[in-house]
């Protein structure tokens, strides 16, 4: 292997950092494809299935060089992938069980061969084999770096060449198949990439943690973006960060787990703080929606209670309002004061009245509700006493464009002026008695 001399000159800690960072980058990008394709646990299977190949390669050649062992690992990893595909295609065994069967059988075979190697050769001669599996970044050699570099270049080239194909297969394999694409072959190509990356990383982070390097950056990046090329780049970048920073963090913490825990920390941070899919953003969004729904319901109740003599802006008794939707008094009081702050209503003592601003907002909420009710009755043929509840669920989510459309449709359907004019149509059902 023609490695630049400069690489020999690197200090060990630099080698480790460069190596793990590069590995993290490739594993992140390739892993993103596997995760999208629903094959997240493929890395786990491949890293276990590599063992018999590693030991066989050693037993056959007597060599412990990284190249020989890696070729063996790749061969047995691909054999496991092939058998798994065959079993899923031909039998009733499902994907999860097929992965599990291949993983444990191949690993068991590896353990058997390893014990054979240990017992039949001079003691210590097979020691390098187990470190191939359990990972030892401290022992990073120039040949490890060269292997990672080669795999990185090869997989980047493959990704660049087959980007469009991988995209389609990852998102919609059935569509790809129906369009006459060689979906199975592309799938195999993708799994081969995953296998190559997994095996390049095995001697560095070990079996279980290599599976993590495939999944974690991809799952993290998925929180931030919906676009494939951004996803691949971001997952790669996250992998580089985890691989580059991880080994330098802990005192006395082994490098492999440190890398994975760094990646896991990035995942948890993204899970919490990502702008759109993060838990906090989603909670805030949900809270906002809930508040808007409560406000719509309050305003509509007020409007409907005031409706008989709307022009006089009547005072609505608190008790009547609470009974209208079955609010608990404490909750209703909180709701009222929140809306009073927005200037939508005036709430004094035991009575509530809508402000002019509030009347307009209430009319808008009521109009949305009744338009949907009318639409359900006339177009979907629902009965008058069935539409109130369904409108209750939908009214808050109707955008203005849909409202216009509803109006147009209702106008075309019945030529009802009430629906066509931007006023509140009368309720299509009896008021009061049927409200909960």
């Amino acid at each position, binding site marked *: 292997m023609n490695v630049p001399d400069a690489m020999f000159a690197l200090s060990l800690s630099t080698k480790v950092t460069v190596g793990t960072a590069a590995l993290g980058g490739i594993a992140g990008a390739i892993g993103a494809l596997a995760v999208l394709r629903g094959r997240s646990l493929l890395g786990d299977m491949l890293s276990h299935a590599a063992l018999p190949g590693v030991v066989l390669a050693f037993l056959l050649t007597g060599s412990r060089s990284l190249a020989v062992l890696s070729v063996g690992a790749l061969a047995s990893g691909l054999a496991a992938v092939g058998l798994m595909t065959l079993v899923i295609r031909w*039998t009733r065994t499902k994907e999860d069980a097929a*992965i599990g069967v291949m993983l*444990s059988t191949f690993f068991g075979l590896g*353990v*058997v061969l390893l014990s054979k190697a*240990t017992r039949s050769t001079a003691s210590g001669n097979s020691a390098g084999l*187990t470190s191939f599996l359990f990972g030892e970044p401290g022992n990073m050699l120039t040949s490890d770096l060269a292997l990672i570099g080669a795999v990185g270049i090869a997989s980047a080239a493959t990704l660049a060449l087959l980007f469009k194909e991988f995209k389609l297969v990852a998102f919609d394999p059935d569509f790809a198949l129906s369009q006459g694409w060689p979906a199975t072959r592309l799938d195999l190509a993708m799994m081969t990439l995953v296998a190559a990356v997994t095996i390049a990383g095995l001697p560095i982070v070990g079996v279980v943690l290599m599976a993590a390097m495939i999944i974690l950056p991809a799952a993290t990046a998925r929180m931030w973006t919906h676009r494939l090329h951004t996803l691949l780049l971001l997952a790669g970048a996250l992998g580089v960060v985890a691989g580059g920073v991880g080994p330098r963090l802990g005192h006395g913490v082994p490098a492999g787990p440190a890398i*994975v825990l760094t990646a*896991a920390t990035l995942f948890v941070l993204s899970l919490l703080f990502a702008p759109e899919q993060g838990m906090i953003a989603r909670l805030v969004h949900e809270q906002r929606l809930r508040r808007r729904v409560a406000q719509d319901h309050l305003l509509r109740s007020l409007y409907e209670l005031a409706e008989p003599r709307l022009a006089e802006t009547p005072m609505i008794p608190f008790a009547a309002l609470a009974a209208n939707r079955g609010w608990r008094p404490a909750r209703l009081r909180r709701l009222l004061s929140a809306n009073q702050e927005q200037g939508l209503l005036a709430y004094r003592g035991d009575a509530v009245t809508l402000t002019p601003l509030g009347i307009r907002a209430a009319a808008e909420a009521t109009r949305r509700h009744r338009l949907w009710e009318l639409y359900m009755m006339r177009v979907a043929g629902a009965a008058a006493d069935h539409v109130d509840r369904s409108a209750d669920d939908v009214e808050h989510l109707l955008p203005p464009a849909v409202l216009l459309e509803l109006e147009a449709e209702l106008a075309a359907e019945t030529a009802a002026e009430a629906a066509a004019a931007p006023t509140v149509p009368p309720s299509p059902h009896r008021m009061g008695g049927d409200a909960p």
Partner: protein
Amino acid sequence: MTGCSPALAVGWPTWLVSDAAAIIATGAVTAAACAVLGSFLVLRRMSMMGDAISHAVLPGIAAAFLITQSYSVGPLLVGAIVAGLATAALTQSLHHYARVPADASMGVVFTSLFALGVVLITQVKGVHFDKQCVFEGALELTPLYVVTIAGVELPRALVVGGVVLAMNLLIVALLWKELKLSSFDPALSETMGFSAGLLHYLLMALTAITAVASFEAVGSILVVAMLIVPAATAHLLVDRLGPMVFLSAALGAVCSGLGYALAAWFDVNIAGMMAVVAGGLYGLAVLLSPQYGILSAVVRNARLALAVVRDDLLGVLYRLEELGTEHRLAAAEACAAVGGGLLARRGLAGLLRAGQVTQTTGRLELTPAGRDAARQLVRAHRLWENYLVQHLGLPLDHVHAPADRVEHYIDATMKESLEQKLDDARTDPHGREIPN
């Protein structure tokens, strides 16, 4: 995780028969305990949960060590169960609330927890964490650790395995119909008032207990193998849940005995060999299962193809007779007319043997029996064509091909009911007579 020195294991093949029996019995009992749960994991498509939990209990065990500073079994089991349940709960909530794909969320959780466990273990002073030992277990050493129960010396691992097996069997028997229902139809189970979620976590807890209890004796590789492989094998062989559970347990026990024998013969690791045997039995089931095996599918398909080609040959000869010519086909011509090849020649040979066709001076002639069979076939074909035209309104040039496919499956009762449905059951849509 204690006492895993390979030096002790070197001499085992010459051990006494009772030691072999102890190892086999321990392996069998442990395998059966795993396999009983495995059936449910495989059916729920959660096979990899066994793999995930058996890795993710590590931080629980390590934390129990760190907190109690002792090796006693109680805290260790509690730690493992907590970690196992946390794995299940975290996987579930990541999938539900953060919309991470199910397999990716499992991968994220168990690899991160495993990394955390490795870090925690390195903080435990005086404990050497032998990763290889966790993977492979120390089944060889089983007879060395004994407990005395009612005056009988028994291997400790055998007693532990027996207790776990009894617990699993008892709980599965008590909750049989609930587990069955929630495995096949979680939604129905939920509506009938059995919480599928509760059963899920119960199953996860049992898996965690079983995994931890089995680790020391058989290692994680055999636990994962026995959780998945025997159940996947049984799933290929039987359709009913009860037989599947018992067959999995029995297969687990068989793997133990056979694995031990082979391991002794080849002088290799026992647990690994048991996993290989399990995989081998699965492979046999994939090939030979009477109902779902690849071989039986091939045989079924070949038989069907042969029956179809024989029907086609009869059809060709009958239609030629129908034309009223004196011309008769040679064997090669007839074979070519139905697609040729080995299949056609075998089909023709079958017809000659069955006495439905005779060959005189190189020309083929239908016998009276053959003519009857052919008439029934052509009748089915033309009735179906007629039906397609009259009832489905297909154009004339579209009915031959579907009738050609369906004609082989139309039996006497169906012919009768077709006849009753048709206005004119005497001629086919092309104007040819429908034979009687």
